[in-house]
């Protein structure tokens, strides 16, 4: 695990000049992941904010071989790249030891990309899949995804007179990935850069498919001051809304236990998408969410050693 000053000696592989929003969580995630990988690396991106904002012809922010083909298929596309790598390496046409990374937003990972994600994981291609999870379709204008938390306001799960935002709970994708029997699954946040860098370093050592779900605050879609991006990601951990854990070859390990578990409302308070939950009439909803967060937290604890 390198110190910050050691990391600073590494070449930036995700460089300045990209057009993500000021304070974008995905930009930090991409930069951290790329700094963590001190090896030759090939990256693929699913269609989404990160892809659109980092490669606008003729400008690219990726100082490594990079490919985008479509929205729902980054895992399949990198499957092909990784397979070609194995084929050509076997033939002696390639000498370098390379790492393969796929980035997808929650839309391209939890929803439309779930099939290709599952297929690539099941086949065990050697790649690290990073979901930069901003909990909605931000690139197309903040529509709900299956990663969107219950009651969050999005443009397709709007808060209205009779419906208080998204009706459903978010999908537990890390668990689905664990069920694939892949060697490494983890959650992380950009606000704990050591945690994220450590997990990326760990993941790329496995000879197989690995997956990290990184909560990636979106100042636009969540509605907060951009300077709070990292803080808000940490608060998700402190409220146990986004526990930090990893599952190494099936074994659960909690990476961080808040000294004092904060109430979920502390997280909601900072975000415009949950503003309606602070109204007195919505108190039962708050309670319901708190209960579910508690339940998921306990469930996770029971799985961890």
């Amino acid at each position, binding site marked *: 695990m390198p110190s910050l000053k050691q990391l600073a000696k590494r070449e930036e592989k995700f460089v300045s000049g990209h057009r993500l929003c000021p304070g974008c969580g995905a930009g930090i995630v991409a930069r951290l992941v790329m700094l963590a990988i001190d090896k030759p690396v090939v990256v693929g991106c699913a269609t989404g904010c990160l892809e659109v904002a980092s490669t606008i012809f*003729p400008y690219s922010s990726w100082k490594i071989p990079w*490919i985008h083909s479509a929205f729902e298929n980054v895992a399949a596309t990198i499957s*092909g790249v990784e397979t070609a790598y194995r084929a050509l390496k*076997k033939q002696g046409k390639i000498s370098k030891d390379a790492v393969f990374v796929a980035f997808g937003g929650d839309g391209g990972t939890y929803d439309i990309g779930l099939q290709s994600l599952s297929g690539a994981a099941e086949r065990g291609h050697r790649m690290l899949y990073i979901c930069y999870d901003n909990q909605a379709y931000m690139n197309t204008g903040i529509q709900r995804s299956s990663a969107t938390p219950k009651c969050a306001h999005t443009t397709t799960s709007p808060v209205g007179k009779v419906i208080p935002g998204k009706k459903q709970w978010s999908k537990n994708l890390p668990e689905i990935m664990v069920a694939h029997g892949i060697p490494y699954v983890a959650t992380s946040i950009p606000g704990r850069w050591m945690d994220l860098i450590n997990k990326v370093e760990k993941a790329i050592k496995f000879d197989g498919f690995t997956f990290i779900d990184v909560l990636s605050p979106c100042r636009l879609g969540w509605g907060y001051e951009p300077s709070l991006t990292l803080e808000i990601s940490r608060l998700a951990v402190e409220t146990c809304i986004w526990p930090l854990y990893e599952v190494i070859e099936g074994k659960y390990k909690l990476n961080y236990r808040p000294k004092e578990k904060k109430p979920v409302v502390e997280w909601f308070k900072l975000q415009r998408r949950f503003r309606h939950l602070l109204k007195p009439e919505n108190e039962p909803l708050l309670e319901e969410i708190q209960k579910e967060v508690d339940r998921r937290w306990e469930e996770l604890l029971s799985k961890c050693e």
Partner: protein
Amino acid sequence: MKGTGRRVAKTANEAFAEAMRQIDPDVVAAYPITPATEIVQIFSQFVADGLVKTEFVAVESEHSAMSACIGASISGARAMTGTSSQGLALMWEMLYIAAALRLPIIMAVVNRALSAPINIHCDHSDTLGARDSGWIQIYSENVQETYDNVIQAVRIAEHPDVRLPVMVTTDGFILSHCLETIEMLTDEEVKEFIGEPPVRENLLKSLEENKPITIGALDLQDYYFEHKRQEAEAMKNALKVIPEIGKEFGEKFGRSYGFFEEYKLEDATVGIVVMGSTAGTGKDVVDELRKEGKKVGLLKIRVFRPFPFEEISKALSHLQVVGVMDRADGVNSYSGPVFPEICACLYDLEKRPKIVDFIYGLGGRDIRKEDIAGIFDGLLKIAETGKKEFNLKYIGVRE
């Protein structure tokens, strides 16, 4: 017969698989679908038996098959796949991407009707629907052509002036599951004919050389059009390259190929335009009608994309009546998909033939010699009377 080929019995699916074995691509990614399934079944046995160096990826859908082929091809690997019908439809999005990223992927397509109603038998609605995806399309009359076309496809796709994906099609069941006599080339002949793929910019080369490239960037109003213009030019270049390679193939192995085949068309007064296995049946009919003194002929389209516009125009220009046989319906109230292309070819002629369309064989409906003879009779009647009483006829459907 030139070459050292040997005569064997193969179905089109077997021929596809054998050609793939001889091409020995670096990566094959595929998903099963009737009637193309056998191709990858046979091929995965070749992989299991160590007869090829290929890395085979049994993907979870056709969309991922094409995506993986794109990933492999952009990494400098020779990539192939095969599919049919719904599988091709599921790939649709990726077809355009493979072509626009200029990837020489080779795909064996076994023509099958599109749902609904669900049907596993032959028509051309699947590939004709993909006509504007930027893929070169080569249709095969029989198993021999299926085999020869795949081998030529590698050279066409990888030609530096072209660099476009190629789909080689064969008629579902009619050819895919029909054992026919073919001449196979030896493995060495194929290897020598296709050669090593020319090296171009690719992901892994850029990794190896530390000169990172970005592929598939967002192209907005200021660049998209230029990239599409390049793609159009590549397709135009294919018009030059395809007959050159067809000729070279003929010189080496005794079977030459062009854009299309003219059968007794030169002195004909009426002719049909046809694609795929029906062309063979059509030739038998032409011979029979010729015996009766009828001046009939046939033009079999082999290359539908790029569309050999000028050449077809010239080949049909002297006819009085042209009948287009469409094995797909445009469901557009006036014709199948091949018809408007042929009309467009003829439009600028000083003296235009009359032209009518026949939609036939949907969902594998058999097309008999009598049916084709009936079509010719209809064309001869138009030639005789100078009157066209219909623009479109459905052949072989219960009225």
